[in-house]
């Protein structure tokens, strides 16, 4: 296996980073852009997280404490939008930028200039979105789902800014996805056949196709919203012959694949980390690939399970129930495969593995509540309650976000050339893993007891579990500052990491030095 001589490259001024701010503004380097994405995502995670702290503070006890209901609604809306489009998605794109070229033996991404552009759109998109908080009439207050007519006829003035920022995020995502597909399909080392690709590469390839398929649908939905608001159309206005429920159909046709956009890359990360720390090959590689493909395919066929209470015909409800239940099958296959990978392995529990095990347990729990939500008659009781809030936070926080954190710990020594502090990171892990359950588990009970979501104040019977959830939330929020500290500390120094950071790791990324050379593979390596 060949690695490239680093010194030779650095003699050429074109092949090293320009100094200062220009390095970041003008960069076309996949690692620099990956770093930008990851920092941006961490910033958004902390911002969206502080909004969550505000929400939990308001819900600490019954009565209105800190915020007016109008501002509370803005907080829940912005929290959702920032976490989804600002924290989770850019983090995955950042990981893709850093790791895909290295994992497939490429020198860089296929479309480096577009790569720069797709990142630098994001700060503008989010400045626009966040600026709505300071506008007259306030920020969007209709939830991240932006159901019409609350967002059209009744939306605040700032809604148009929200629409434009969604357009920008969509453009950024689509360009990122095109780049990822082009890179994976064209720049693989010749000996890396599709069925030899690491699963993380596979899951990102599929995610990128999902992105290209559904981001334009979201753009279409918000454009129709823009037309209804400003140009007198009535797509979603019943008084003009439109249909408010059509908005939901279009939105969830985007929204359900979006759910998988936020989890498939995490599946890929798990499929890298679990074999490494089990010192054993991934169980059922082909079935992992096929399961991911079928999840992605099915994700287009289940959208209306978010809308059972809108009054669909009974046959429609039965169809969407069956299709939704069907997704549990390939998802189950993935979980069984990971457990089978661990079984009779030689396990050790460094921080990435701890996060991976927590992912396995808690994502499965989120999957179970998802299965319960698929049962239409039961969904009539769960829908739009805290049971749903618990469900999607279980799949998104210990699912997507723990996946990202596991990936950061797993590859941080590769990126920086330093090991992180295993002691501190374990403190971060245990605080997060325990507090997240104190935060989200009681929400199941709240939902079953009848507490609707998106309310700033609640009946007295919900007080106890809300208090517990808030305490868990504050601990979880504070623990993330440890994460930030660990990252900064690791970048600045620490025990030197060799090329093979983890004893049991396999893959091309471990053949490059830590940190890797500025251009990853200038000659294609040989894949065993």
């Amino acid at each position: 296996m060949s690695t490239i001589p680093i010194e030779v490259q650095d003699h050429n001024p074109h092949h090293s980073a320009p100094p200062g701010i220009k390095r970041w503004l003008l960069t076309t380097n996949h690692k620099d852009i990956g770093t930008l994405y990851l920092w941006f995502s961490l910033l958004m995670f902390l911002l969206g997280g502080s909004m969550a702290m505000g929400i939990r503070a308001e819900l600490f006890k019954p009565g209105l404490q800190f915020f007016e209901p109008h501002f509370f609604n803005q907080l829940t809306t912005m929290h959702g939008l920032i976490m989804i489009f600002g924290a989770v998605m850019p983090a995955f794109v950042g990981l893709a930028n850093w790791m895909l070229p290295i994992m497939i033996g490429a020198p860089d991404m296929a479309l480096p200039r577009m790569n720069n552009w797709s990142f630098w759109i994001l700060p503008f998109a989010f400045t626009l979105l966040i600026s709505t908080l300071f506008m007259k009439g306030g920020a969007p207050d209709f939830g991240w789902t932006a159901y019409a007519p609350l967002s059209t006829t009744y939306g605040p003035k700032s809604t148009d800014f929200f629409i434009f920022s969604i357009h920008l995020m969509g453009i950024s995502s689509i360009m990122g996805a095109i780049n990822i597909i082009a890179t994976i399909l064209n720049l693989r080392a010749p000996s890396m056949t599709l069925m030899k690709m690491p699963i993380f590469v596979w899951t990102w390839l599929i995610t990128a196709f999902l992105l290209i398929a559904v981001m334009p649908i979201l753009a279409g939905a918000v454009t129709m919203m823009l037309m209804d608001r400003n140009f007198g159309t009535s797509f979603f206005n019943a008084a003009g012959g439109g249909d408010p429920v059509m908005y939901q159909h279009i939105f969830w046709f985007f929204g359900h694949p979006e759910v998988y956009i936020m989890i498939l890359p995490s599946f890929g990360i798990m499929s890298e980390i679990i074999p490494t720390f089990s010192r054993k090959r991934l169980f059922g590689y082909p079935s992992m690939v096929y399961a991911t493909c079928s999840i992605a395919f099915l994700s287009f066929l289940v959208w209306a399970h978010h809308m059972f209470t809108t009054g669909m015909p009974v046959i429609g409800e039965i169809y969407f129930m069956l299709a939704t239940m069907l997704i549990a099958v390939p998802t189950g296959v993935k979980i069984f495969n990971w457990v089978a990978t661990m079984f009779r392995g030689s396990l050790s529990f460094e921080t990435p593995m701890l996060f991976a095990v927590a992912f396995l347990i808690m994502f499965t729990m989120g999957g179970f509540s998802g299965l319960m939500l698929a049962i239409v008659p039961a969904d009539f009781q769960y829908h739009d309650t805290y049971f749903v809030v618990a469900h999607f936070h279980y799949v998104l926080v210990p699912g997507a976000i723990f996946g990202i954190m596991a990936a950061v710990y797993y590859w941080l020594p590769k990126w920086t050339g330093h090991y992180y502090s295993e002691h501190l990171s374990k403190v971060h892990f245990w605080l997060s893993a325990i507090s997240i359950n104190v935060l989200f588990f009681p929400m199941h009970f709240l939902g079953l007891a009848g507490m609707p979501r998106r309310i700033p104040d609640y009946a007295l019977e919900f007080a106890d579990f809300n208090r517990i959830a808030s305490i868990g939330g504050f601990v979880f929020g504070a623990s993330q500052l440890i994460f930030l500290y660990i990252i900064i500390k690791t970048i600045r120094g620490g025990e030197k990491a060799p090329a093979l950071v983890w004893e049991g790791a396999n893959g091309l990324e471990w053949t490059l030095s830590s940190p890797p050379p500025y251009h990853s593979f200038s000659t294609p390596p040989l894949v065993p």
Partner: protein
Amino acid sequence: MSPSPQFRALVFSLLLAMNPSVQADYIFNMTPGVTEISRGIHNLHMVIFWICVAIGLVVFSVMFYAIIWHRKSRGAKAANFHENTLVEIIWTLIPFSILTMMAIPAAQLLIKMHDTKTDSDLSIKIVGHQWYWEYEYLGEGVRVISRLSTPQEQIQNRDIKNPHYLREVDNHLVVPQKKKIRFLTTANDVIHSWWVPALGVKKDAIPGFINEAWAKIEEPGIYRGQCAELCGVLHGFMPIVIEVKTEAEYQTWLLEKKALMNNHPTIGHTP
């Protein structure tokens, strides 16, 4: 001289902090409710819950077995297997068949829930407004406007909260016991969702469209719910209180209401 509002607020919040009775008991699970349908839902909920628990126990026991016994620190050596077609087919088919079995009773109950067309005894049109509910007894000429009755003082923490804080209204929706009631939901402005857990009914109220649901309530009593779809600023403040009376009591109430409507035709109209 009366004490200043600040002083009163202080006293009340101290009282609130000391008085544990304002905090209700912990509720962990869905309640079975008071209709055949809501009990059916509760059954389905419990069945799927225990199925999840069972699958979870199996998966997590295997996992924890590996976590405990197959540790490197215990000297475990990694095995070499990484494929087994038979096992993979089995663990695809088992969840598939469990789910199919689950789908059948769910679909049956669903079909029953959709039966709004046959023998209903009365129909009530429910209109969601920002932010209150309006009930119209179709064919009776009776209309009820139902608004939150919790005083602002309690919401702003200046007063001790009622036991039914935020789940109390000025005018209840009154219905007879053991009659099939058809609910027709719609809305005047944005989408709302009419939800009473004890009835097993949650139906979106959508402007320009009419949705149907039904309930046959066995037990007289008062049941509470609230709007479930984000509908703007006061979404959290539009509760539903439904009062179930015996047939005779209901007829009396209806007559009184009709008389009142005839004498004061403006009552019940949107102010």
